[in-house]
């Protein structure tokens, strides 16, 4: 789900090279180079921008953007890949501490720096696959870069990387589960605990504090009050939480680059949060979610899910869809919704998804539940 990006990804920034060794990334390089060979590409340019759209360079380098600026990975058929990121040279050593890349270049003009790298490697007139480009790059930078590459053959390579990113390794699933556990632990602190003199802001601060102390890199919180007409998820405000209100909390957090999301709904009773989940609602959620099975296209899942939802008294929140892929970014390919352009994508083992559904409970209250699941991995 779309959330408000912070001005800085200010949490723990560590590369655990035991848990996520260089071999993991080298395996991705091998896979991408095989794809490049199939497509006749001499190089790949993987671009990311801001804190939400940095997935392509992060996936290969493990470097993640901390500020709303860009990063670019240049991968050639052989030789060391290059990481370029917008930032000061003083930030170079911190960047190098979190990537296995040796060639790391801090710059402010990423287009010019990329042009230099392409020229160094004699690629300005080559066949180059692009991911994140030109879609995510500010137009002035793209004008500079595309002018320098006017003799090159530029090929859209999104699908090659999206499909590789979508199927997770054991290590990746482990990171996602860790992020998920942090969120569950934090949300679990809300139920049944008394919060005097709290409001939306302080409750969100409490949740964020909980996951930060567990080492979350990034954390987002949205709130919704489904009892209100025309309700929608939104960032928290300096607003009270009132007795009798139903409040849904959507939380997303990342652990060592990997994201998870979850949503829970609570009833404010006095100055406490009473969780509106029940074992029966959990079962209904799982009944719908488990239709996400290997070998079936997303459209197939959607149709089964809609049928199950009718019998489970569940409601599709049209504006948010069912969910989406999740990994090194919180929101990634493929998207699961009736209008999704990814309807024909076949679900594969070890794909990870964030799913959200709403149910009406016995008192006709809308109860929103969200979870992150790994397909056919025991989740």
């Amino acid at each position, binding site marked *: 789900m*779309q*959330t*408000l*990006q*912070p*001005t*800085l*990804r*200010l*949490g*723990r*920034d*560590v590369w655990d090279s035991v848990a996520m060794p260089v071999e993991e990334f080298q395996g991705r390089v091998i896979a991408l180079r095989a794809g490049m060979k199939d497509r006749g590409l001499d190089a790949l340019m993987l671009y990311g*921008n*801001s*804190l*939400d*759209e940095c997935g392509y360079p992060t996936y290969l380098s493990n470097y993640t953007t*901390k*500020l*709303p*600026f860009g990063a670019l990975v240049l991968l050639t058929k052989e030789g060391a890949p290059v990481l370029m990121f917008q930032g*000061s*040279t*003083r*930030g170079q*050593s*911190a960047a190098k*501490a979190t990537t296995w890349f040796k060639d790391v270049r801090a710059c402010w003009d990423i287009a010019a720096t990329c042009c230099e790298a392409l020229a160094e490697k004699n690629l300005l007139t080559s066949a180059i696959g692009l991911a994140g480009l*030109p*879609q*995510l*790059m*500010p*137009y*002035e930078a*793209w*004008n500079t870069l595309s002018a320098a590459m006017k003799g090159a053959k530029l090929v859209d390579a999104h699908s090659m990387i999206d499909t590789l990113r979508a199927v997770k390794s054991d290590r990746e699933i482990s990171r996602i589960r860790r992020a998920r556990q942090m969120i569950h632990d934090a949300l679990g602190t809300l139920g049944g605990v008394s919060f005097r003199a709290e409001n939306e*802001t*302080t409750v*969100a*601060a*409490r949740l*964020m*504090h909980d996951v*930060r*102390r567990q*080492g979350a890199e990034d954390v987002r919180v949205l709130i919704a009050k489904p009892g209100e007409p*025309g*309700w*929608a*998820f*939104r*960032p928290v405000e*300096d607003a009270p939480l009132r007795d009798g209100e139903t409040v849904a909390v959507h939380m997303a957090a990342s652990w060592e680059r990997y994201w998870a999301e979850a949503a829970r709904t609570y009833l404010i009773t006095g100055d406490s949060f009473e969780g509106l989940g029940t074992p029966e609602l959990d079962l209904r959620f799982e009944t719908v979610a488990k239709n996400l099975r290997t070998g079936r296209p997303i459209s197939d899942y959607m149709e089964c899910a809609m049928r199950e939802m009718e019998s489970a008294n569940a409601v599709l929140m049209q*504006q*948010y869809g069912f969910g989406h892929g999740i990994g090194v970014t919180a929101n990634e390919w493929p998207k699961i919704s009736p209008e999704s352009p990814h309807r024909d994508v076949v679900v594969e083992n070890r794909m990870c998804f964030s799913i959200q559904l709403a149910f009406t409970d016995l008192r006709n209250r809308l109860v929103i539940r969200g979870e992150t699941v790994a397909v056919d991995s025991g989740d």
Partner: protein
Amino acid sequence: MNKLAEAVRLINEGGLGGLLVYSNGTVNILRASYLEYFAGFAPMGPNNAAVVSRGGEVILIVEPAWDARRAKRLSWIGDVRGTDDFGNAIERAIRGLGIHGSIGLAGGAEMPHGIYAAIAASGPVLPADEIIDTLARTKTAEELALVRKVAAIADVGFEAFHRFSRVGVREYELVAEMEYAMRCAGADDNFILISSGPHNTAMRNPTDRRMTEGDIVIGEITPVCRGQFIQLCRTVAIGEASPVLMAKYDLLMDAWNAAVKSVRAGEPASIIASTIDEILGRAGYAKYCQPPYMRTRGHGFGVGSVAPGATLDAETKLPLLENQVVVVHPNQYLPETGYLACGETYLVGVDGAERLSRTETRLYVNEA
């Protein structure tokens, strides 16, 4: 000042057909938040814009579509449209408002290529950041109150920084406590960089490192509220502060004091950096006042404008103007001590600089 009336005046004065104020949903410490300033609303999705005609009609377009309700509630703009197809929505808005000729674009630095192409299909696009910068030059009483509110939050953040810079605390735990304290005090976001160790080389994101006796802990403590940043730069020594450390911090304090005295409306903003560099240079550290060690001696902070500059150095051309908010920070790498942090944020006045924080600027020492 009526923002819309003034924007319309500037649009017409500039011979533009209309104005588009764009945001990609990010808040950047080195940029103004033009759309948040103009619309009174912090956008969330990847593409958002206010479109203004020569006659003063305005449409606010936000992504994703479900965020329109929040935009309607928070913004003064009446015509709010949620969309999941921003390119088409923008073209329709420009056509619907009858905008012809050149369109001014504020916030174009963050606009991706595809969106720019969609707008350029309607006519020539000209940079127009200056329109919003001009609007933001005059601060209202409400904006000044926000500045002071955020300054108070920064003090709360410093107190947490001071309290939790202790033996055994991990860097990321320190940042967690600082963020928590500032959010509870009213910050809706934070920009916190720290470093700990006997000899720091830069401020950065926190790691797993546990602080220990003999560490120098440095931090940029920067809460944000409705797009307004305020920054403190502080240093805490854990255990006894060595005579060298105290002497070098005194040097930074001298540079800071001299720079602050030079801050007044009408002076070139470069005076901050040149004053600091001169004092440190005379002490034998001229080499360390240049990249790769240092360059920036401060920043302008504001919602609609970061004048006199996102980064303040010896080349900053613009003058300091009344009611600008600037951080003066002689943060400096010194070979004897490593990087030390010292900085405060000020409101520029006609007669001098008004200090915004109340916690004392000095080297802090925590017992081990």
